[in-house]
């Protein structure tokens, strides 16, 4: 029946597409005619003319509108000319596709693929590499424990996002550490975009509920933005057929595994944000907490149905920006403080594990808490004709101020042994040499310089260099250069080169008392070198194309490897990767009430030593999005995602995971006149496709993702 459904879907899809495409007028002549008509009216007649308010929900023009980015160099410039390969997602895009969280938004970007890890946390894999820098309003979120962005959870609630700017490619010359495979900057809505109060609720499959309120207004000289959101979900509870404990059960002849059983990926999210803007000063505070987040398969890859983890993120920032401090200086200064913590209560193996040695299960409760203090100063200098110089410097103090670890086991010769009796308190390893990671801190400072030189209106060269010095691993210098050639106003080509680095994480440097891998304080940063060639062509007013090629090489990649010196497995700079690929995107406003976006990306990322694929993401991915205005105020958005050719390591005997296609529909009623209701309903994974991402050998049937789900949403703007 599924195939029949699919056939019906595709036929209707084509039919509507043809219909929508043929039923269009010529928008250019329309505008002249409209102006002529308006100019024929008297002034008092003009004040009675009803208009469509701009910028409200013109998703079709929005798609092909020239977009600007700030993430590439720090100054706002057109995407076509920015010296980086970028994607911009606007609030309108997010609303149109009916996205619930950041994952559903980012999977629309060519070359960005969202994978899951053992905890089912999203990993934003760009061009085969998930080492990505995440920024919230320009401020780094990645932790120093393992470089992850887990504390971000699914934050910020997509409803408060104004735009997301994404660089695929290196960004260390501007942002320093971890801007390795790419940079994702999430920019939240400001008062002038909210203009009053917006409230919304959403409910859907998997017992998901969500409520939010946004407020933005001017109070005297202050511009205030506030946002609150709460969401709760049980998660998709897909079935894991067999896990690591199943393998151990085979060895011990026991039956303790919770598999086959549902995976716990539920969570409760709380989020609050406040921005206060006055003249050149901006103060902002963000708080995000995740409670009762399921551990999925945890570190051990054994189903954990009883444990959970919590994360907290708090940051406060004060920014001073003066666009005209002196005639030639545009200066920004910022102090920021951020605190994050992750508290994991994990049933490493379920009750009865190790032939009944652990009647309550083998339990581990590690906690990491970090704080980061930063000061940054940067400025643009425009004294010289045709040159825009940017320079900046800053200081960072990263402090892993608390690590705690409680377990109910100790390592024994023949495997783990129960440390304390059943019902007794667990063994507290905190502040002892037995803890998994010592409390530690590091300082770093940086200096950068960048110049954009406009030789002629057609030619622009930009070059930048950044020096970073860290108290633990030393210094690193990362240059970048770009040549931008715009032979015609609608055609831009760019040749880009950049280097970036990934700072060794505290885990890689100092982890201890761990049988699998040991920290190594001698580590150097990982390095990447990237070349890109990009083409941007606005074929007509309503049809745009972009195409780019990339190649990168990573050296000194850190992996846990056997060290023959003392027969231990520890983190070492021994791996190397190389990758190449292409990305293509087209955006087309088919008619006054329909538009289409299609993108395709290919990447082939190899381990340079073995010449084998690293298999971190599918080789091919394609995405098609169409928006139609079906009826006045009724919008239909269709998204089709395809992933293909996701290989396995050569020592993995399993067949590769199947290619998959998922289809999402969102139908939205939106009165584009201000002050009214907005309803949406939608379905994701319409055909209930069995989507799986490759899992390790001890999870033989891989990681299943959500099947079909429905949602409904109501918003109101006061």
């Amino acid at each position, binding site marked *: *029946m599924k195939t029949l459904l699919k056939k019906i879907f595709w036929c209707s899809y084509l039919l509507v597409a043809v219909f929508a495409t043929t039923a269009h007028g010529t928008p250019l002549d*329309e505008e*002249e005619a*409209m102006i002529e008509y*308006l*100019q024929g009216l008297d002034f008092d007649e003009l004040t009675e003319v009803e208009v469509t308010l701009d910028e409200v929900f013109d998703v079709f023009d929005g798609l092909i509108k020239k977009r600007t980015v700030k993430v590439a160099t720090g100054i706002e410039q057109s995407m076509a000319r920015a010296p980086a390969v970028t994607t911009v997602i606007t609030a309108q895009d997010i609303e149109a596709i009916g996205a619930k969280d950041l994952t559903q938004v980012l999977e629309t970007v060519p070359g960005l693929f969202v994978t899951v890890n053992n905890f089912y946390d999203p990993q934003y894999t760009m061009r085969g590499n998930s080492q990505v820098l995440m920024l919230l309003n320009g401020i780094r979120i990645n932790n120093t424990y393992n470089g992850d962005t887990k504390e971000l959870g699914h934050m910020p609630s997509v409803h408060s996002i104004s735009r997301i700017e994404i660089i695929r490619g290196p960004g260390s010359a501007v942002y320093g550490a971890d801007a390795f495979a790419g940079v994702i900057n999430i920019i939240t809505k400001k008062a002038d975009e909210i203009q009053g109060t917006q409230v919304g609720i959403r409910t859907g499959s998997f017992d998901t509920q969500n409520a939010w309120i946004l407020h933005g207004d001017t109070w005297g000289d202050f511009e205030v933005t506030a946002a609150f959101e709460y969401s709760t979900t049980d998660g998709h509870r897909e079935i894991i057929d067999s896990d690591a404990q199943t393998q151990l059960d085979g060895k011990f002849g026991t039956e303790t595994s919770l598999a086959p059983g549902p995976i716990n990926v539920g969570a409760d999210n709380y989020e609050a944000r406040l921005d206060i803007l006055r003249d050149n000063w901006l103060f902002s505070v963000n708080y995000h907490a995740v409670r009762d987040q399921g551990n999925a398969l945890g570190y051990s890859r054994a189903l954990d149905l009883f444990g959970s983890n919590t994360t907290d993120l708090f940051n406060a920032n004060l920014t001073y920006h003066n666009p005209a401090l002196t005639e030639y200086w545009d200066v920004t200064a910022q102090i920021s403080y951020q605190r994050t913590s992750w508290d994991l209560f994990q049933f490493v193996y379920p009750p009865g594990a190790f032939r009944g040695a652990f009647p309550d299960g083998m339990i581990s409760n590690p906690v990491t808490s970090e704080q980061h203090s930063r000061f940054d100063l940067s400025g643009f200098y425009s004294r010289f004709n045709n040159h825009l110089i940017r320079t900046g410097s800053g200081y960072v103090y990263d402090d892993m101020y608390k690590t705690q670890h409680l377990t109910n086991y100790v390592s024994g010769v023949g495997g783990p042994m129960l440390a304390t009796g059943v019902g007794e308190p667990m063994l507290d390893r905190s502040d002892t040499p037995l803890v998994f990671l010592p409390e530690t801190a590091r300082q770093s400072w940086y200096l950068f310089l960048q110049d954009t030189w406009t030789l002629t209106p057609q030619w622009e060269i930009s070059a930048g260099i950044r020096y970073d010095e860290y108290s633990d691993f030393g210094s690193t210098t990362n240059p970048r250069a770009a040549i931008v050639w715009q032979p015609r106003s609608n055609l831009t080509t760019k040749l880009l080169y950049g280097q970036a680095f990934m700072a060794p994480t505290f885990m890689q440097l100092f982890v201890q008392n761990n049988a699998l891998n040991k920290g190594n304080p001698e580590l150097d940063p990982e390095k990447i070198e990237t070349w890109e060639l990009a083409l941007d062509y606005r074929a007509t007013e309503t049809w745009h194309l972009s195409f780019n090629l990339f190649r990168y090489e990573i050296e000194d990649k850190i992996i846990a490897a056997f060290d023959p010196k003392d027969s231990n497995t520890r983190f070492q700079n021994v791996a190397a990767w190389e990758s190449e690929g292409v990305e293509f995107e087209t955006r087309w406003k088919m008619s*006054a009430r329909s538009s289409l976006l299609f993108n395709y990306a290919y990447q082939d990322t190899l381990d340079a030593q073995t010449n084998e694929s690293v298999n971190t993401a599918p080789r091919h991915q394609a995405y098609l999005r169409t928006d139609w205005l079906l009826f006045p105020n009724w919008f239909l958005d269709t998204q089709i995602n395809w992933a293909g050719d996701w290989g396995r390591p050569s020592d993995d005997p399993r067949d590769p995971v199947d290619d998959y296609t998922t289809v999402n529909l969102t139908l939205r009623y939106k009165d584009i006149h201000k002050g009214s209701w907005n309803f949406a309903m939608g379905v994701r994974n319409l055909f209930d496709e069995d989507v799986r991402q490759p899992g390790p050998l001890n999870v033989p049937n891989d990681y299943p993702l959500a099947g079909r789900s429905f949602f409904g949403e109501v918003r109101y703007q006061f």
Partner: protein
Amino acid sequence: MNILSMRPFIVFAITMSLLIVLTGITSPSYGASKTPREYQLKAVFLTGFTKFIEWPNAAFSKANRRITLCVLGKHPFGRALNIAVARTNKRKRKGRRLKVRTIKKLKQIAACHILYVSKSERRRRSTVLRYAQHSHVLTVSDMKHFVKNGGMIQFYTRRNKVRFFINPKTVRHADLEPHGNLLRIADIVR
């Protein structure tokens, strides 16, 4: 087949029929509807103001004979403003012709006759207005409280209609003379 396994099909069928029915009954022409966009209308207002404002001769020079309509900051009009200006010039037999300039620097305000201050400039609006005080320039914006802060004309929308506030005192202070017909339509702020 039990009813539970039919459920996805029913939901799908409802969605599809909704899609097809809505598409079917929709007339192809409304997409190109006759409702103008906010900034098309504002562009027509901006060019129209030139008919209702009189500038002193000192505001013009040999090199600057035309009425210069400046847009400071992010240009929200698309092609509409250029079309409106081109059409106004085409129809003009007598009187001064218009031209549009997009400006970024405050110094350039001195050469403007109408200054449209984009919302992107809201953080420096007081500086902009201070600069504008020194010239014979009509200041116009969509920004909230623009007239209250010393601007001359402020657009606002009510029930999807574009209206504007005017402060005749600040207009006259710049040696500009507003036509009675303009004051009649506008909401006067004192």
